[in-house]
């Protein structure tokens, strides 16, 4: 299994939401920046594999029956050496989670997070439609590694992945049967404690309390992993950690599915190696469709970067961390020069404020207040106190909610102030740019846009 041709899938990243149809558009012109692991079926024949084709392509999974296959702790050791990190946003080392869940008392539960709540991202839906068996293999491997008795795949109600995943499940008999849970399609419902709460009580709201690894679904040790993370796990179980490290960097090994949207020629989902410079990633998507000023990397909890900074910057956890930035979920939205970053950010904040679960004061009051400040700034309202007030609010809200939703929103806002510093000054002085009222580029669900 190595890396030959390019995968390019058109998704409707501009109009937001999960994609429902996928059309191949081109073969990418930069072979060195590509890797084909998760999306091999698609690159080869432009459609998903059924189970037989899937096993022919990737080989069968090694035995996952106790006493027959590789020992559990050796499997987890291999994941540790592979350096696999979560693809759901935080980049947490997967082996550490596996170890914690395996060590906790009680029969474990594996929860595959396929909600993909971030409107800038289509990668998980693309993966589940194109390689559903890889995701299910990953769930089976995770179940084996932590000796789980139950497995649940969480999808949003109405998700385009429901049907392909159900169809794939019907073709297999896994040692631990996989249930599908339909989660209310709200942004914070896919946060891990909210999923655990939903599967325990039916309320899809984040909670405070013990970590899921120790006491999760119905008090049992619970592994919550992103579906793409699990798909990589399925490949590590087959081909090993050295193979996995043939792509990517030391601290961000492997490939990742990356959603590229905004002002590029071919918005879509691409499989790339970690370490690809952002400018090369944009080239995969056919390059800019008009001249750019900035990119939003990492989704709604990510960061704006002026193109001058973003260009050469490799897409890795470590390169972002060196700049004090989170890498976030693998997504890029390209913002043209003729657009207003302040207004784009104001819309995102309004959406995130609207999506607060309304349980914690600093989040339910703080996010709307910050969103309102940004809306005034975007409109170019002259207000001497505006920037001071905003700075103060950005300082007090983080770290004070039950989940990291407010921290992510505030981080996005704070980083916008530095990425668009000149525009912010002009707006605050009562001179908004003339693009402020234009059609938005950041994809957001309609009710909020």
């Amino acid at each position: 299994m190595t890396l030959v041709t390019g995968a390019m899938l058109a998704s409707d990243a501009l109009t937001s939401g999960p994609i429902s149809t996928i059309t191949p558009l081109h073969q990418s012109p930069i072979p060195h920046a590509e890797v084909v692991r998760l999306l091999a079926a698609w690159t080869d024949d432009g459609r998903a594999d059924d189970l037989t084709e899937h096993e022919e392509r990737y080989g069968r999974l090694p035995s996952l029956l106790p006493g027959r296959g590789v020992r559990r702790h050796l499997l987890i050791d291999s994941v540790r050496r592979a350096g696999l990190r979560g693809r759901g946003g935080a980049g947490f080392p997967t082996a550490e989670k596996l170890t914690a869940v395996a060590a906790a008392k009680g029969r474990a539960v594996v929860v595959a997070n396929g909600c993909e709540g971030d409107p800038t991202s289509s990668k998980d839906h693309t993966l589940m439609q194109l390689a559903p068996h890889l995701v299910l293999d990953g769930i089976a491997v995770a179940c084996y590694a932590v000796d789980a008795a139950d497995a649940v795949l969480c999808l949003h109600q109405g998700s385009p992945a429901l049907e392909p995943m159900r169809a794939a499940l019907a073709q297999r008999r896994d040692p631990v049967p996989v249930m599908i849970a339909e989660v209310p399609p709200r942004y914070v419902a896919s946060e891990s404690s909210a999923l655990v709460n939903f599967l325990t009580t039916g309320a899809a709201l984040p909670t405070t309390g013990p970590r899921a690894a120790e006491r999760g679904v119905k008090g049992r040790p619970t592994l919550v992993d992103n579906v793409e993370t699990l798909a990589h796990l399925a490949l590590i179980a087959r081909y090993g950690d050295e193979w996995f490290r043939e792509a990517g960097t030391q601290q961000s090994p492997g490939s990742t599915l990356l959603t590229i949207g905004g002002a590029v020629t071919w918005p879509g989902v691409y499989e790339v190696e970690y370490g690809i410079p952002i400018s090369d990633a944009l080239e995969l998507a056919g390059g800019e469709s008009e001249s750019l000023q900035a990119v939003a990397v990492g989704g709604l909890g990510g960061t704006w970067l002026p193109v001058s900074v973003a260009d050469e910057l490799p897409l890795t956890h470590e390169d972002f961390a060196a700049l004090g930035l989170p890498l976030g979920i693998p997504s890029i939205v390209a913002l043209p020069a003729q657009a207003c970053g302040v207004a784009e950010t104001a819309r995102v904040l309004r959406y995130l404020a609207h999506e607060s679960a309304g349980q914690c004061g600093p989040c339910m009051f703080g996010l709307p207040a910050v969103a309102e400040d940004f809306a005034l700034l975007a409109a170019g309202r002259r207000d001497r106190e505006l920037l001071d007030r905003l700075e103060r609010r950005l300082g007090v809200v983080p770290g004070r909610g039950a989940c990291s939703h407010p921290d992510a929103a505030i981080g996005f806002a704070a980083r916008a102030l530095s990425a668009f510093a000149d525009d912010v000054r002009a707006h605050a002085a009562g001179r908004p740019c003339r693009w402020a009222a234009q059609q938005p580029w950041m994809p957001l669900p309609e009710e909020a846009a």
Partner: protein
Amino acid sequence: MSRYTGPSISVDPIACTAHGLCAELLPEIIELDEWGYPILADGPVPPALRAQAKAAARACPTLALKLSRG
């Protein structure tokens, strides 16, 4: 690094309903934000304030404020 070790206070943000009692009882460590929710100073409670902190935790009407071992 803090100068003290020992228990520190924390607030459960879901349970807290902004009564603000804690900030009255323990102003040295707790202030309220503009919406009436407590902002806690970082780190363990200074030894001289431990009794006061315990009283504040006991007085919190929703038991959101907790004194935890450090």
